[in-house]
């Protein structure tokens, strides 16, 4: 035992620091017992009230789920818009995580950088290996706050603080991007602590995921930052990330499949880029696959289209079966399950999802551009994917889905005309029953940028034709 420990022991046993208990110990203890009983009774009453209230509270969030304003409790509506992310993974009510984070942060952070008051767990990340990292985007809508990354361990006391970032611009409408945390072993946790305990910061966050490749990977003339492994519990989501120049990023996260995408779109409105699983399949603007022409299990096809300044749609398809998918364009009859999720990236909301069963040689080719969605506000969506074939031909894959509820069961009839510059027209018609997915292929060879696609159909509710959706082939990446 050295001098420090001796002093420590001596101080703790210092007789000057005695505490004289209350004069009437019996009454004092009795008061404590009485107080605990009152608290117990109060807690029981509160639990009862909460249980009763839950009965009415369960339905409401479902009804309001598509209202962006509900994504951020207490946030003014004007603060939503593009940044109206659903705070997936944020404000986790995980007492163990909060306890560990608070403890680790307090133990490891230098003076002045410790959390002051409560913390909010923004996300719990997956395992990251050597060279991996975390990356988080978000915006603080009011109040100063500090953001920290912590490694999580089985034992709460073994958690470590990796990095902290001060967020000090409460009025900012810009994204706050926390750079990747490199060279971290273990799982990561992102935690937010309001700097001022009386002004809790609201934080809109999106865990982008865990980096698989170094940042600033260059690809042709375009630049994309990272291909991410998806946050395992996240839904497919689109994020807009303003970058330098006229380039914008859109990040798509895949749920459960461990795959995510980054799609890049110039603000000029030009259709841009398709990214895929950790570089397995990457398509350039002209459709030439620069990488292996094989989609690995779990791979994602993603595509994005900006149609003018107001309308922007994104299509993402995901092969969910683990079976190896054949090369692109192979005519294998192996059936895969493929999801198509349609987005309105302008506000990041998921519009509709579709699941189809297709022979892999065809379904997996679902790439290239997409058409508008949501007719009559009733969650009807469709996508058309010109598929470049190895022969130089193109096929169109028409897929869509609509849902209007169990009490309404009309069919949806859609017709897709492919009008070529030479005047020839190819037509495909599909009839979709309620909650089924449109799925039809259209021969679309000899397309040029001046070809047009026209989608027509009957309003399933009114029985009258709805306004045709038209878009030039160049919007779909046809060049």
């Amino acid at each position, binding site marked *: 035992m050295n001098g*420090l*420990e*001796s002093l420590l022991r*001596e*101080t*703790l046993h210092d007789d000057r620091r005695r*505490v004289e208990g209350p004069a009437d*110990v019996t009454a004092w203890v009795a008061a404590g017992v009485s107080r605990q009983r009152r608290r117990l009774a109060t807690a029981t009453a509160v639990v009862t009230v909460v249980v009763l209230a839950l009965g009415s509270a369960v339905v409401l969030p479902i009804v309001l789920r598509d209202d962006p304003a509900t994504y951020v409790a207490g946030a003014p509506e004007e603060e939503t818009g593009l940044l109206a992310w659903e705070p997936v993974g944020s404000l986790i009510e995980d007492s163990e995580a909060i306890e560990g984070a608070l403890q680790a942060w307090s133990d490891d952070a230098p003076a002045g950088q410790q959390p002051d008051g*409560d913390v909010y767990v923004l996300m719990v990340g997956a395992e990251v290996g050597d060279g991996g990292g975390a990356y988080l985007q978000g915006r603080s809508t009011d109040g100063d706050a500090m953001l920290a990354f912590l490694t999580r361990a089985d*034992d709460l006391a073994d958690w470590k603080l990796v990095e902290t970032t001060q967020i000090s611009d409460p009025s900012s409408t810009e994204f706050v991007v926390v750079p990747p945390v490199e060279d971290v072993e273990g799982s990561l946790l992102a935690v937010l602590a309001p700097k001022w305990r009386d002004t809790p910061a609201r934080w809109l966050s999106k865990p982008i995921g865990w980096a698989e490749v170094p940042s600033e990977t260059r690809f042709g003339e375009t630049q994309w930052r990272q291909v991410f492994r998806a946050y395992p519990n996240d839904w497919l989501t689109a994020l807009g990330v303003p970058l330098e120049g006229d380039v914008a990023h859109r990040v798509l996260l895949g749920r459960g499949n461990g795959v995510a995408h980054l799609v890049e779109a110039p603000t000029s409105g030009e259709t841009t880029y398709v990214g895929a699983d950790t570089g397995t399949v990457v398509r350039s603007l002209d459709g030439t696959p620069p990488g292996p022409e094989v989609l690995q299990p779990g791979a994602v096809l993603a595509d994005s289209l900006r149609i003018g300044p107001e309308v922007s749609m994104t299509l993402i398809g995901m092969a969910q079966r683990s079976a190896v998918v054949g090369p692109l364009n192979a005519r294998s009859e192996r059936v895969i399950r493929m999801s198509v999720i349609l987005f309105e990236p302008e506000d990041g909301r998921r519009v509709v999802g579709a699941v189809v069963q297709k022979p892999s040689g065809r379904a997996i080719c679902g790439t290239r551009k997409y058409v508008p969605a949501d007719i009559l506000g009733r969650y009807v969506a469709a996508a058309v994917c010109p598929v470049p074939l190895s022969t130089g031909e193109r096929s169109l894959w028409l897929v869509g889905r609509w849902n209007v509820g169990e009490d309404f069961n009309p069919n949806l009839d859609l017709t897709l005309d492919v009008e070529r510059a030479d005047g020839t027209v190819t037509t495909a018609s599909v009839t979709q029953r309620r909650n089924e997915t449109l799925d039809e292929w259209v021969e679309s060879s000899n397309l040029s940028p001046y070809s047009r696609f026209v989608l027509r159909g009957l309003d399933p509710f009114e029985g009258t034709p709805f306004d045709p959706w038209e878009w030039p082939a160049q919007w779909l990446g046809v060049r």
Partner: protein
Amino acid sequence: MDEAGRDDFEALVAARTGALLRYAYVLTGDRHRAEDLVQSALASSYRHWRRLEPGGAERYIRKAVLNAYLSWWRRPARTRETSVDDVAVFLDTREGTPGADFGVDTRDEMWRALALLPPRQRAVVVLRYFEDLTEVETAARMNISIGTVKSQHSKALRALQTVFGADIADKPEIAGGMR
């Protein structure tokens, strides 16, 4: 609780309240919080008296005090009460006890340094140097691993060493300071 149990409980309260308060005080550094913790722990033990192991009541109470201390710290800051009066604790303002090698000023400085330790580190220090528990016993009391005890202990000593410097840390064992 039956009459025999009540007698046992009252006997324990009468005999051990002072020691429990002292234990809570070295944990919290605050007289009023110490009283609150001990009162709550005693009340809790009263409610669970029949389920306590024979002879294990004080161990239960001490663990309850420790848990209450750690959980109190985790409560939102706005819901914590802060005591400002600690003067009454100093019942004896004489110089250090005979045989002690460190003066009052040094011990007071150590006391202030202890107050700056995070609760878990402070708890480890108290259990190790006040309760004289081994690392294994400390781990069991706190429901943490031995490795965590070691790391928290090490961190605490490093933090204290930054206050007192290397000289005191290198000072050899001082018999007079030991108890």
